[in-house]
C-alpha cells in the first residue's frame, strides 16, 4: 500500500487523510522531519500559509521538505499548500519551498465574503468538478514545463509541473476524490491499487 504524508502543522489535515484513505492508500500525518521517511508522496493541505511557514521554520522542516522535493517524489499543494510550493509568491521577496515552477498571488479572489464554490472543467477529469475556493490564491504565471489543468474566469487554478501538483481550491472539502486519485496516480507504480477515474464520484 502506498504511504502518503499530509503535512499536519495546521489546517485541513483530517479531510486529506480521509480522501487519501478513500482512494486506497495509507495516510501519514507529518509533524517532524522524521515523519517524512518512507513516504511515497506528500500533501501540503489548505490552512494559513503564514502560520504553517512559521512552524516549518521553527521545527527544522524546510530543508527536509526541499530534500523531499529533490528526491522526485510527488507533492500536492491545495490553497496554502500551493503557496508553499510555488517558485514565486507575489509581494514576498522569497518563496517558501520554491520548488514548483509557478508564481502565485495570495487571497487573489478577495476576502472571505468573496469566497465561492463553482463547477470546473479539469483536464483529464470528467466534468464537472465542484470546487470550493476559500480566500484562494491563483497562479498568475507558469513555467514552460508546467501543464495548466484548469482555469476559472481566466485565472489558472490548477496546474502540474512534473512531480508537483497544485490547486487554488479545496478538493478535500468535498466527497469527490478524483483529484486525490489523480495525484496518487502520479506515484510510480501507483495505478494498480487505485480505482479508475469517476468511480468514487459522488455529487454532494
Amino acid at each position, binding site marked *: 500500500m502506498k504511504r502518503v504524508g499530509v503535512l499536519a502543522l*495546521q489546517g485541513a489535515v483530517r479531510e486529506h487523510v480521509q480522501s487519501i484513505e478513500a482512494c486506497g492508500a495509507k495516510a501519514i500525518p507529518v509533524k517532524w522531519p522524521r515523519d517524512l521517511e518512507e513516504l511515497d508522496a506528500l500533501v501540503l493541505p489548505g490552512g494559513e500559509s503564514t*502560520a504553517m511557514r*512559521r512552524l516549518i521554520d521553527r521545527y527544522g522542516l524546510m530543508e527536509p521538505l526541499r530534500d523531499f522535493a529533490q528526491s522526485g517524489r510527488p507533492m500536492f499543494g491545495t490553497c496554502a499548500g500551493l503557496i508553499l510550493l510555488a517558485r514565486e509568491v507575489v509581494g514576498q521577496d522569497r518563496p517558501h519551498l520554491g520548488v514548483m515552477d509557478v508564481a502565485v498571488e495570495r487571497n487573489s479572489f478577495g476576502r472571505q465574503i468573496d469566497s465561492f464554490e463553482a463547477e470546473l472543467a479539469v483536464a483529464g477529469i470528467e466534468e464537472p468538478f465542484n470546487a470550493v475556493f476559500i480566500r484562494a490564491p491563483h497562479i498568475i504565471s507558469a513555467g514552460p514545463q508546467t501543464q495548466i489543468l484548469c482555469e476559472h474566469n481566466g485565472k489558472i487554478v490548477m496546474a502540474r509541473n512534473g512531480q508537483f501538483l497544485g490547486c487554488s481550491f*479545496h478538493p478535500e472539502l468535498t466527497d469527490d476524490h478524483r483529484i486525490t486519485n489523480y495525484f496518487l496516480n502520479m506515484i510510480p507504480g501507483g495505478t494498480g491499487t487505485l480505482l479508475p477515474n469517476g468511480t468514487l464520484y459522488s455529487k454532494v
Partner: protein
Amino acid sequence: MSEHGTDRVKRGMAEMQKGGVIMDVVNAEQARIAEAAGATAVMALERVPSDIRRDGGVARMADPHITEEVMKAVSIPVMAKARIGHIVEARVLEAMGVDYIDESEVLTPADEEFHLLKNQYTVPFVCGCRNLGEAARRIGEGASMLRTKGEPGTGNIVEAVRHLRQVNAEVRKVVTMSEDELMTEARNLGASYEFLKEVKRLGRLPVVNFAAGGVATPADAALMMELGADGVFVGSGIFKSDNPERFARAIVEATTHYQDYKLIAELSKDLGIAMKGIEISTIAAGERMQERGW
C-alpha cells in the same frame, strides 16, 4: 456559475483554521505580533475581555477604525465581534469585509431572546456554546463554526474544560443512542431531531468547534486540544501576559504539538507571568458572560 456564502464555503473557512490559534487583538501592532507568532486568524476588538470585565458598562462592536487598521495590517483572516442579536452591527461588519463574525457573549447582548439569523448573511459566523443543545440552536440559525464559551477574561481554564467536556460527552451519547431514542433526546436538549441524526451519522459536530474563555498558558491550549477541541481562541491570555510575543509563539506551538509534553515543558520555561487569573466563584452569577445567550 459561482455561488458565494454557501454552507460549504462558510464552514470550509473554519476547517482551514483547525489546529490553529485565533488571537484577540486591539490594534494593528498586536495583530502583526499575532501573525508573526503563527496565529491562523485574529479577532479585532476594542478591549480584551479582561478589560471589559474590569471596566464594566456596555461593551459594543469595536470602532470600525480599529477593525480596518487590523485588516490592513495582516494577511491572515480577521474576525470581529458583534453583540448577540445586533443585526446592524453584524451587517456593518459584513459590509466592511471582515472574514468571520463572532456573535459574542463577551459583548453586552443587544437581544436577550433572539440570536441573529445567521444563514441570511454571506459572511460566516462563529458562536459560543456550553452544551450540545446550545450548539444545535446556533448551527440551526446558521453558525458555521462554534467555540465552547468558557468564562472569558478570567485566565481560568475551568469553565472552558467544563463546556468542552459537556459538548463532547453529549455528542458521544448521541452517537451511541439508537435511532428511536433520538427524538426524546432532541426534546431534552432543545436540539432539532434532524441535527441529532446528522451528529449520529457523522460521529461528531457538523462544524468545527474551538475552545475559548480562559486559555492563559501553552499547557492550557494543549489541554483543550487533548480534550478534543479543533483549535483555540486566546483572548486576554496573550496581550495581558508579561511577554506577549513569547506567549503567542509558545501557545501556537503547544497547540500544534499538544501531546509532546517535553516540548510543552520547554515552551513553558521562563515565559514570565501569565495574565492574573480570577477564581470563578468570586464572580457574581449576574457577571458571568457564559450565561448570556441560551
